[in-house]
């Protein structure tokens, strides 16, 4: 059966990252920004890319990360990971669009950017960033997972979080903040 045909399962698209293979070339940034330009390919600007390569030549650190969800607050503390003797800040692996750094933020509007897996009709064989990455630092896989229970579970989580917020700040304050959030319109 082809991916996506079974109503009880859904296709998870994954981009696997092998940071040992990354050369830091940023072709992925170039391609993502071109693909999302209006009209398509009309301009290049890595600052609009939904993938950024965190690189630090002195530390031999090259980490491509894709834009995930918007987060309004800076994290209060960060882990430092030591991998193969090299120290990485937690930020090097975090795809959040957050106030502590100026990427995954649309340079003109200030709105958060999020990877959309190059959604298009017809669908691309593989996302642009993966296509241009010729070192296989990025590879694309599609996986079938069982659909049931997942939405429920997710709603449950949101409910739990909201309840915690309401307990802390009161219902009105939470509703007010939700209304004021600029990205609320975006969703």
């Amino acid at each position, binding site marked *: 059966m082809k991916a996506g045909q079974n109503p009880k399962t859904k296709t998870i698209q994954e981009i696997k990252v092998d940071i040992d293979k990354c050369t830091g070339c940023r*072709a992925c940034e170039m391609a993502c920004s071109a693909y999302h330009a209006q009209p398509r390919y009309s301009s*290049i600007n890595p600052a609009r890319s939904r993938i950024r390569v965190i690189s630090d*030549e*002195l530390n031999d650190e090259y980490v491509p990360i894709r834009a995930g969800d918007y987060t309004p607050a800076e994290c209060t503390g960060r882990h430092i990971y030591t991998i193969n003797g090299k120290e990485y800040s937690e930020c090097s692996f975090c795809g959040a669009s957050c106030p502590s750094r100026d990427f995954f933020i649309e340079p003109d509007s200030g709105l958060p950017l999020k990877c959309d897996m190059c959604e298009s009709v017809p669908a691309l064989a593989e996302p642009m960033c993966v296509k241009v990455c010729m070192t296989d630092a990025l590879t694309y896989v599609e996986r079938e997972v069982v659909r049931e229970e997942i939405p429920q579970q997710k709603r449950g989580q949101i409910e739990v979080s909201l309840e915690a917020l309401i307990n802390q700040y009161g219902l009105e304050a939470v509703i007010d903040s939700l209304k004021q959030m600029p990205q609320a319109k975006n969703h």
Partner: protein
Amino acid sequence: MRYAETGFDLEIDLTRGSIDKVATEPDLAELYLGGQGSAAKLIFERVPPDVDAFSPDNLLIFSTGLLHGTPAPAANRTAVNTISPQTNLMSHSLFGGFFGPELKYAGYDKIVIRGKATDLVYLYINNDHVEIRDATHLRGKGSTETGDLIKKELNDQKVQVAAIGLAGENRVYMASIEHNHASAARGVGVIMGDKRLKAIAVRGTKDINVAKPAELFELSQELHQKIGGSDGNGDWMAVDEDDSFHHNHFAWGNARTRIKNYWSPELQERWTNWKYDHMDRQTGCYNCPKKCRNVIKWPGRERFAYKCYGKDTYHMAAFLELDFSYEILGLAQEYGLDSYSTPQVIAFALELLEAGILTDKDFPEMPADSRGRFFYLLEKIVRREGIGDILANSVSQAAIQIGNGAEKFDHNTTKKFEQLPIKLGKVNPAYFLMIATGEKMSITQIEGSFPQDPLPTREQREEFVAKWDAVPDEKFKNYFLNWEKRNDITDEATCDIVDWNEAMHYIDDSTGLCGFVSSFRGQFGGGVAYHMNNIPQVIALATGVAMDKDKLWKAFQRIRTLVRAVNVRRGLRRKDERPPEDHWAVRDEEAEQELLSKYYAFKGWNSEGIPTRQTLERLDLGYVADDLEQRGILVVGADGEVGALGTGVAGGQAAGKAMGVAP
């Protein structure tokens, strides 16, 4: 709307502390492309020949290439141009990495720097926000260390930094400008230091627009796949562990000694282990699928990266092995030193000591072993201490200062610039012309499209030309098909070949393309991604300017002739156009001079190598002809014939062994 370009230069006066964003003429791209091409025009117009390299009026120009910031792969070479104190000519320097594209995204095609700050400063460019900032706290800091400190200070890891190290600060002529693990060589760091500019930090988040989006993207992706998927592009030396070519054929020490059977399997194994035991990874430049740089972390030394022959220069000058290069290169990178010329300067000094022209008194407390001596002299040079103060002025200038016969040991320079340590047998006509007339100071910046050597059989040659897409004209296929012995080729073919080789470099250095996917690489296998037959289309799709092969060729001639005019105005003449006298053991002065005359005529230059009015006008350079006439360099009405033929001294009979260099 301007496509591919931003349409603005950033003009900085460090004396006055002024910053101006200046709109540029829209038709410049069509005539001078960008990069080194339009930089040459600025230097011709704004740096007259009486301006000394160390004058505040000398310009230091960082140029993006015309294709930087577009989807065209491997367009990332930033050009740095100024007047060199070493040669008194226009310098030619390039570096890869990310700086040029970032500058475009910040909204500028060039940074044009004049004047001098009173103390160390750095330039911070963040889109429209441009600032000259104090850099006294960075004094003495290493080049990549400086980049790291600036990123931390600005709290922005995505800033791209180009910086000088101690060598540049102390106005060492061999000083480089370093950017991450890329290096701008051939003597530009000295002027950055003289201007008291420690670094430039750039961050840009603006769009670069292109004229024909979908077509350009598609063509760029084809080229990207071709570059990444073929070994006809990039630096094969990054992965080929057999480096017998350089070690068996190039000269060791002060470009003196050939060791013909140096390479062995045992040595290769030992060196390969050194490499892979200490290599972190291989990295590439902006928007290029190749990974030409080997990143090495040697115990106790700074992490550094090298490309190509850059790993051999130090140990060959010192008669040592690869571990020595690995040990010294990290330090040399942090000091910001050109790894091609610096080892030659050190080997030259040690030869003078051996010959008794310099004595032990000139080298107080110098270690006895070669390894120790190189580290010792490196320190003396970057600090300009004792003899280092003289050596810091390069081989030619130091030889004059030392005198007492030292000039004879300055045997491997052309136009006062250190050349690759190559000593061969019989004259190779194309190489004679390229080294003699080149103004990019290194043969690697001139050679590259036509193969260095013929293939042995007609069948092999036929096979080669059958898939040779890069030729600008069918005649090159015929030249190659009928070429059997390296030195046996007509003068007509030689002129054409040298011209093509030059054309590709001048185009790359103005569009910002990397030579490893274009001008330098076609000579090895012919299957290079960019060439005369597709670059015009890439330019046209990116810029919207109508471009074809003839127009591009003419742009090359225009830029090349303009560079010559800058240098002619500063005194360059026929007598200076000589390869090192011992480059070949067997010379034929008469034939060489006859070939040189033919080449000058072919280029439309007079017998002194000065472009004629007719040539200049044909290339839309009438303003150059006027200037040269006003200065008496061209005679009005005589179409440029001035002075007697200066053919210089007779061909040298100096050292050098039989030939046998094969790729």
